[in-house]
């Protein structure tokens, strides 16, 4: 019936190293254009939202349209502060890795608005199930940087006792779930936590975070299925930062649909948001949180953004994408845009900005000093190897007690 034979399609990003950056085929609608439905709207009534882009800040930095959350300037300034602190923290910690004070680090540069705004849109006791790129959640929730640094340095004050790869934080007191090295596993757990909250007649909701690449994992499907079936009070945030490691979002199915559109097939609302627009991220997260908290079920939010930095300190993006993509990203820099907005509304200026920047740098330095005083990776070598056998189970079983003994005896023997 057809003459031609079949061909296998392999998605390719538009630009590779050496190519001239070209984002011309990104359709960026003007700010203020997208309608804002009631929080109890039927998912089927807002399917188009999954293909649109919720934007509040226009090119001049004015907040426009129905999604404008009309936040008070102090609140905006603290949002700015959290984002700036997150970025400064990232810069510092990468330097620590460079000089060998830790083995690994992951920055969130360019994506600070997503974690910070969503954290500020939730209650402090709502539970977050993050991926490894939401350090902004902890910063917005006031977790002392020194705790994060202690984990990164695996030093004697490390909250997880030197067991985890750097940045795999676990902060129960800040409603921040233990980060898993295995992608997307946190999503069904977030849904289960939300189901438990609903089962218990609680008022707390959950939020899960995942990347564009990891949305291809099974747990993404499980999470959305259980979320819709049980109408779990959970918000699923997809950070579409265009890249996994070396593969672009088209390799995760982004060539023919948005990630927000995934929600449609499950009968869930899917919102697509300008991820570099603090106000839009806040407004969407707030809408979804209110929806969940009022028993109207789960929402999927795609935050459309760009991963400005390398995937991690183990990665060199110049091998697979043009170095200047980020500079040309049409949605700009979330910090610059919120700063500009505050200036436009007369609540901020460059002097105050620089002053704040200096203050944050000093704060990070001071926290770093304290953390370093507890040690950095291998320096001094951690001195409680026996603790390696704890927490495998609540009570240490016989065979682990025996293994611990053997290990300590071995350690005591001087090498010949």
């Amino acid at each position, binding site marked *: 019936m057809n003459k031609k034979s079949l061909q296998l399609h392999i998605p390719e990003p538009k630009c590779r190293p050496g190519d001239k950056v070209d984002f011309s085929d990104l359709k960026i609608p003007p700010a203020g254009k997208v309608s804002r439905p009631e929080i109890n709207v039927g998912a089927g009534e807002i399917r188009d939202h999954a293909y649109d882009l919720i934007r509040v800040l226009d090119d001049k930095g004015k907040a426009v349209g129905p999604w404008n959350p009309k936040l008070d300037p102090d609140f905006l300034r603290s949002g700015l502060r959290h984002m700036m602190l997150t970025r400064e923290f990232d810069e510092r910690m990468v330097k620590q890795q460079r000089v060998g004070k830790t083995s690994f680090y992951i920055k969130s540069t360019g994506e600070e608005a997503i974690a910070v705004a969503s954290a500020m849109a939730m209650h402090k006791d709502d*539970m977050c*199930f993050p991926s490894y790129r939401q350090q902004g959640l902890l910063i917005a929730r006031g977790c002392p940087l020194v705790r994060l640094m202690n984990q990164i340095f695996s030093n004697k004050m490390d*909250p*997880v*006792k030197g*067991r*985890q790869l750097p940045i*795999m934080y*676990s*902060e*129960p007191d800040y409603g921040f*779930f*233990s980060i*898993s*090295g*295995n992608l997307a*596993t946190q*999503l*069904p*757990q*977030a*849904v*289960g*936590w*939300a*189901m*438990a*909250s609903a*089962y*218990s007649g609680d008022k707390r909701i*959950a939020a899960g975070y995942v990347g564009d690449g990891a949305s291809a994992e*099974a*747990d993404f*499907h*499980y*999470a959305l*299925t*259980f979320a819709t*079936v049980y109408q779990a009070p959970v918000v699923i945030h997809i950070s579409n930062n265009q890249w996994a490691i070396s593969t672009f979002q088209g390799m995760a199915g982004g060539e023919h649909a948005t990630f927000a559109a995934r929600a449609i097939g499950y009968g869930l609302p899917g919102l697509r948001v300008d991820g570099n627009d603090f106000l839009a991220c806040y407004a969407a997260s707030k809408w979804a949180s209110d929806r969940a908290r009022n028993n109207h079920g789960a929402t999927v939010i795609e935050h459309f953004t760009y991963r400005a930095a390398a995937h991690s300190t183990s990665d060199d993006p110049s091998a697979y994408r043009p170095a200047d993509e980020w500079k040309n990203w049409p949605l700009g820099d979330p910090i610059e845009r919120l700063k500009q907005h505050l200036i436009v509304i007369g609540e901020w200026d460059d002097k105050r900005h620089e002053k704040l920047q200096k203050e944050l740098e000093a704060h990070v330095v001071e926290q770093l000093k304290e953390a370093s005083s507890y040690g950095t990776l291998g320096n001094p070598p951690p001195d409680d190897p026996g603790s390696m056998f*704890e*927490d*495998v*189970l*609540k009570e240490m*079983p*016989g*065979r682990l007690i025996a293994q611990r003994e053997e290990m300590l005896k071995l350690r005591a023997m001087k090498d010949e």
Partner: protein
Amino acid sequence: MIQALNSALDSAMERDPKVLVYGEDVGYFGGVFRVTAGLQKKYGKTRCFDAPIAEGGIIGTAIGMGVYGLRPVVEIQFADYIYPGFDQLVSEAARLRYRSAGGFTAPITVRTPCGGGIFGGQTHSQSPEGIFTHVCGLTTVMPSNPQDAKGLLLACIEDDDPVIFLEPKRIYNGPFDGHHDRPLTPWSKHALGEVDEGYYTVPLGKANRVRAGDQVTVLCYGTMVHVCLAAAEEQKIDAEIIDLRSLLPIDLDAIVESVKKTGRCVVVHEATKTCGYGAELVALVQEHCFYHLEAPIERVTGWDTPYPHAYEWDYFPGPKRVGVALKKVMES
């Protein structure tokens, strides 16, 4: 045994509102093996309910519930279908306490029917305990009778760490001893078929010596306990038979004490042989009883093939095979 398991869930739910039960077909219908029958009616739709056919989702959400503070007991319809949930069990449930230094835990119980002998073919007959006992952070339990089943399941639900609770489906209705050509005695006619009323636990990590003997130690669990008892009787061998009950934690003392006494050991399970749990038993026995052993330790297990539908009884390690092994260790 089905009633015993049902009674265990009932007692747990009655006692602790944090206990809830879900899985495929467990709600309105009460489970394909009826273990959850009546619980939805008694405790309401939100405490015993059906789940989507998504084992990874069932286990992943259970972990989230455990993190919240509940004690979910989930059913995987057949152990053969637990693999889609393997990542959540191995990478998440088993490691959560460790990686969070105790900050988060997953006190979940995963119930699932295992084993063959019901003409279920290769995807309704598997005994996967050996892949779970290799994973640190998991507790793995398999009862051999109703009295234990109830007490062990309640102990698992009480346990603050994730537990794999394997239910040998062939003994749901009676102590099947491998003689498939003979009528099955129902549990009602069996000493351990009588289940205590109300709440009680059987401690995890304590083996049960179901038959005392001096000549050879038989290590087994689940359905094989009854097969081994039958074999010992039929061969008139003075075998000491130990029902391990919980595979991890393991009752090493009971094992070592018995083997040091008998000097001989046979390890029996229905799972495939290579790298099965029996290999660990052999390794432990030879490590701890080397100088007491008078003969090589024998393993009697399922063959290293999938469970074949038509040749089920040539696959199942029955009393005849166990008997041959017993005689072999006695003679060598």
